[in-house]
């Protein structure tokens, strides 16, 4: 399975690379990412500073490495929120009595239509920009699509014979969820979580680019892009670095999700041939 699924292999490698950079950031960076060196301001890439230095003479490579923290941590927590909220809402909607189901679906639809970043902007307006508001806004906004997919899947599972059998033998709703629904959802949840990670990471970098994400001095890829963009005239390569970091991570999660879907869903594999 792995041998033929190139998408999955590339996805795993790219995500693995980002995760390795993230772990590395806790042990080693070429320079102190916050150390200011006025005499080294805005130098182009060289053997001593591989990616060059920013306007304050800080090493860009070190900042890109440490910047992975803000992005990946926001991504992971947002995905945890969206999975917990989305999956519970999806299961609850699918298992709720008929009269409650339509309003619940409707509620999910409304949140689904709310633009994620716009929602995050409103929260930032209210509570001030911070990692927490970004995580919360992205998590809640993404939970709607998770809830929608989960609800459909659960509806399918609930029609299966083994669920009818479990009901007939007196299993309660909670037991059915634990014994039958959740184990059967596992594959779909993995796929959804990787897809949500990609969107969450893009949303985080967008928010910090707009100045509404992780506040300084903690470096974040989006904010680095926004500040380095001003020095395009000196060397157009500056803003490319944090951009490449974002692309590698997001592409990795997207391919990982596609590859997983292909690996877990045999019908898709036949389609691809």
């Amino acid at each position, binding site marked *: 399975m792995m041998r033929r699924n190139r998408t999955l292999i590339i996805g795993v490698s790219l995500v693995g690379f980002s995760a390795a950079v993230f772990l590395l950031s806790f042990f080693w960076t070429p320079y102190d990412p916050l150390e200011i060196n006025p005499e080294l301001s805005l130098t182009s890439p060289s053997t001593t500073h591989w990616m060059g230095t920013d306007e304050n003479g800080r090493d860009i490579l070190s900042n890109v490495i440490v910047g992975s923290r803000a992005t990946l941590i926001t991504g992971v927590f947002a995905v945890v929120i969206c999975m917990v909220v989305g999956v519970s809402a999806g299961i609850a909607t699918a298992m709720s009595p008929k009269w409650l189901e339509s309003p619940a679906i409707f509620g999910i639809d409304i949140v689904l239509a709310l*633009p994620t970043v716009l929602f995050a902007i409103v929260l930032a*307006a209210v509570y001030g920009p911070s990692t927490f508001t970004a995580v919360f806004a992205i998590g809640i906004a993404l939970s709607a699509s998770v809830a929608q997919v989960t609800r459909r899947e659960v509806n399918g599972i609930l029609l299966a014979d083994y669920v009818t059998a479990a009901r007939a033998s007196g299993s309660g709703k909670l037991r059915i969820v634990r014994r039958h629904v959740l184990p059967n959802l596992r594959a779909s949840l993995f796929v959804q979580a990787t897809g949500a990670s990609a969107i969450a990471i893009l949303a985080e970098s967008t928010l910090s680019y*707009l100045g509404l994400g992780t506040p300084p001095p903690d470096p974040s890829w989006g904010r680095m892009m926004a500040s380095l963009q001003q020095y395009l005239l000196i060397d157009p390569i500056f803003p490319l670095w944090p951009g490449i970091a974002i692309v590698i991570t997001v592409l990795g999660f*997207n391919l990982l999700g596609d590859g997983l879907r292909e690996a877990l869903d045999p019908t898709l594999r036949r389609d691809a041939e």
Partner: protein
Amino acid sequence: MATVWYVLRRLALLIVSLIASSALVFLLLRLLPGDLAQAKLGIYGTPEALAQLRTEYGLDRSLPEQYLSWLAKAIRGDLGLSVLTGADITSELLSKATVTLPLIGIASVSALFIAVPLGMLAALRFRKWDGIATSAASQLGIAVPTFWIGVVLITFFAVQSQVFPSGGFPYDGWADIGGALRSLVLPACTLALAQGAVLMRFARSATIDVIQQDYFRTARATGLSRIAALRVHGVRNALVPVVSVLGMQISTLIVGAIIVESVFALPGVGQMLLQDVNVRDYTKVQGTVAVTTALVFVVSFLIDLVLGLLNPRMRQR
């Protein structure tokens, strides 16, 4: 009769969504810690002045009352006054929309022109190198943040070869139509590339669907080439799912416009919203966000309606 019911049901859904989303935005912005009147008057806030301001903005009334009176005015197109500058929110929003709406319009149309042909190419030649390369480009395009595309375009077309301005909008606005269009080229391209990459995936899978249909095989059997058969039968059939995705993407487009305006310093709705957030002008943020979400709901309503009328199977859902 079924059609009438479908339209009515969908319309009811639209109205409830508009009320629910505007109430949500209202609540989020009013549950703030602190007091709007105090924030505006600062150290000049004598008790009398505070009380007067609260009455003026209706802050002394209950939340549902405040919401209903805001809603009643909003329906008539009156979004009230900015709590900080006292400017009329509706007219400011309308003047900023003259930048944002053309940007979104040009970008959506260009995105379709990028996505549909390339998606078809990727589908027809999915084993050949050019098909694979187009699919890979679309994957890459989805992973690239919109603002990065903008920065790259600025680097090439505004810094290295100074063909287009790197940002800003003519002071005279659309009176200087050449200048206005020139300053929208790069922003619209940025948004179109970002959207096009997403749409291309759908165009590709829609084309694969068409190729597998019996009518396509029949057309091929009558002697039409793959391209000709696709032109006669494919484009329109493949366009339906792509347009519906474009409709669903309207919220992404609006967010994309906010980002692009920020990259290119365009004085549009998005730029205004970000400034209002920074100075905490809540009434204006509320008006802008409410109108924007309303736009999202109305567009998806219209798209649903068109698709429902085109395709009777959609009405069942």
